[in-house]
C-alpha cells in the first residue's frame, strides 16, 4: 500500500511538472494530462489524480492573494496588494477579497503558505501570547 502511494505520488509529480509552462500551471496542459489518465490504463488513477490535484492546487494558491478583511475593502486596495505581491514573489499574483468579520479590523493576506497578518484580531492574539 505504502509503495503504491509512493509510485502514485511520483507519477503525479511527473504529470504536474508537465503541466507547468514558464512557471505557471497551463489549463491546456492540465486538460491534456486528464485526457491521458482517462484514456490510458494508469495504475491507481484515483490516488494519482488526488496527488496531482494537491500539487496543482498548491501551485495555483501561490498565484492568488486571498485578502481576508473586516469591513469594506475597495478595488484600489486589492489591486495595490496584487501589485505588491507580484513584485515580492516575482510572478503574477491576483487578489481576491474574502470577508472575515472575526478579524475586527484590518486585513490578513494569504499567498500560498505565507500569511501576512495586519488585523486587530491578530495583534490582540500576539498581545495575549506575550503577556
Amino acid at each position, binding site marked *: 500500500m*505504502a509503495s503504491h502511494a509512493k509510485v502514485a*505520488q511520483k507519477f503525479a*509529480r511527473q504529470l504536474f511538472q508537465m503541466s507547468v509552462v514558464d512557471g505557471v500551471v497551463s489549463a491546456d496542459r492540465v486538460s491534456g494530462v486528464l485526457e491521458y489518465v482517462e484514456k490510458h490504463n494508469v495504475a491507481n488513477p484515483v490516488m494519482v489524480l488526488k496527488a496531482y490535484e*494537491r*500539487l496543482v492546487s*498548491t501551485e495555483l494558491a501561490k498565484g492568488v492573494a486571498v485578502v481576508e478583511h473586516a469591513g469594506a475593502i475597495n478595488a484600489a486596495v486589492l489591486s495595490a496588494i496584487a501589485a505588491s505581491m507580484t513584485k515580492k514573489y516575482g510572478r503574477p499574483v491576483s487578489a481576491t477579497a474574502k470577508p472575515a468579520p472575526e478579524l475586527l479590523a484590518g486585513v490578513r*493576506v*494569504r499567498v*500560498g*503558505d*505565507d*500569511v*501576512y*497578518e*495586519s488585523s486587530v484580531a*491578530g*495583534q490582540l492574539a*500576539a*498581545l495575549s501570547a506575550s503577556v
Partner: protein
Amino acid sequence: MSTVLEQIEQQIAKLSNKAVKKNTGNIRTVADGVAKIDGLSDVMYNEMVQFPGGAIGIALNLEEDEVGCVVLGDVSQLKEGDEVTTTGKLLAVPVGRALLGRTVDALGRPVDGKGPIDSKETYPVEKIAPGIIVRKSVSQPLFTGIMAIDSMIPIGRGQRELIIGDRGTGKTTITIDTIINQAKINKVGLASGDKNFRPVYSIYVAVGQKNSNIVRTISALEAAGALEFTIIVAAPAADNPANQYLAPYSGAAMGEWFMENGMDALIVYDDLSKHAVAYRQISLILKRPSGREAYPGDVFYLHSRLLERAARLDGKGSLTALPIIETLAGDVSAYIPTNVISITDGQIFLETDLFNQGIRPAVSVGLSVSRVGSAAQIKATKQVGGKLKGELAQFRELAAFAQFGSDLDAKTKAQLERGGRIVELFKQPAFSPLPIELQVAVLFAMQKGFFEAVDIKKVVDAALSLKSFFTTRKDALLTEIRTKAALDKDLEAKLQAACEEWKPTYSA
C-alpha cells in the same frame, strides 16, 4: 486611572503596524505523537512549530510535499486540517541556578508542584558540541565516593564514563551515590570558605522510567540533602516518545549553562537504551528507513552528538556525563551498547553474578576501564591504590585456577586471601559514598597489612570500625590528606600511627 490608560496606550504603540509574515501549513495526519503537515514551505530543520490549542512541535522530517513534526503536548485536540504556523525559533529550555532542587519535564516546565521557576535565561536544546580549540584535557578528579571506582576506574571532570549492566545490577545506585557525594563535597567545600573550591552541580535525566522509580530517586537525594544541588529532568515511561527523545538534550542544555559560566556540572542519562527506543519509535512513525534492530541509520549520531557536549572548556567549567546503558543477559556486543561504548571515555561494567554473590557495587574489574580519568586521579589514591587493579585481576585468575585443585602453595594461598580481602573491602552499601580521604586511609591500612590478621568474612566489619575510628578520632588527619592530596613521609607516618592505634581497638 490615567496611568492605567497610559500603560495600555504604550502597549498599543509597541504593537507594530507593519504586517507580520507567518508561514503556515495544515495537518494532513496525526498519529502516535507525530503530525504530517502540508505546506510549511519555509520551515527549518528542528524549528518549533505552533499547533492550535497551545501545543508545540518540532519539524524533524522535511520532505518534498510534507513536513513530519513530533508533537510535544496533548495531541488529542488536534485534527486533520488544523492550521500550523512556524515560529522561527529553535526549541529552548530554561537554564540557571533557579532550576536547582527542582523537577522539570523535557521542556523545562516544573512538575514538582513547587510553583513556577524564576529563570531568566534559556538555552537551545540542540547545540553543536564544543570544538577542539576551546577544550582542555581532563585533569581534575570527580569523586564518585565509591571506593572500587575512585581507586581503579577514576573519573575526571569533563569525562564521559558509561555505566553498563543488566537490569537490577545497581547502575542507578552508582549514579545516585555520585550525586550524593558531589553534594557532600560541595557542602564541605563551601563551608571551608576556600576561594578555589569548585562545586559540582548535578543533573539527573530520567528517560522512560517508571514514575515510582523517579520518586524513589528524588526521595533518596532529598534524604541525603543532595537535592539542593541537583536538577531532575523527568520524561517517564508514560510520557510521549517525543519528550523522551528530547529530555537528554534538555538536560545537556541545563548542564551547559553551568559549564559556560565557569562552573562544573555532572549529568546522568538514565538510560540511553530507552532513549534509543523512543527515537526508534519516532523514526518508524516518520517512515525513516530502518537498519539493524529496526533502529534508524542516525542512531549513532543521536548519542554521539549528545555525549560530545560533555567537555572541559579552557577558562570555563566542565560537564561530566555518566550515561547508563541496560544490557540483556550481559551482552555488551549488542547494537546500542557497542555504539555508546565507542563514544564514551570508558565504562563501568556491572555483573549480575557479582551482584548475586553479594559483591556490591558489582563492578567487574576486568571489563571496566577509564580511558582518561587516571590523569585526574589524586596522587594519594595512586600511591595507595595504584596496583589494586592488577592485583584483583591476578586474584580472579588464580581463583578460577584454584577451583580445580586443592593443593596450593603458600604464596598462591596468600595471594588468594589478599584478593578476597580486597573484594570484601570494596563492598559498600547504597547511598553511603565515602570521602576520598577516608578511602585513602582504608586503602593505606590494607596495603600495610592491617587487615591480614582479620578473617575474610570479618573484613567488612573491620573496615567499618576503621572508618568510624578515623571519622571520630582522626578528623585533623583526614583534613590533612584532603588538602595535601598526596602522601608524604610525614603523612604516611601519621597514618601508620593511627592504624596502629586502631588495631587494638578492633576485636574480631
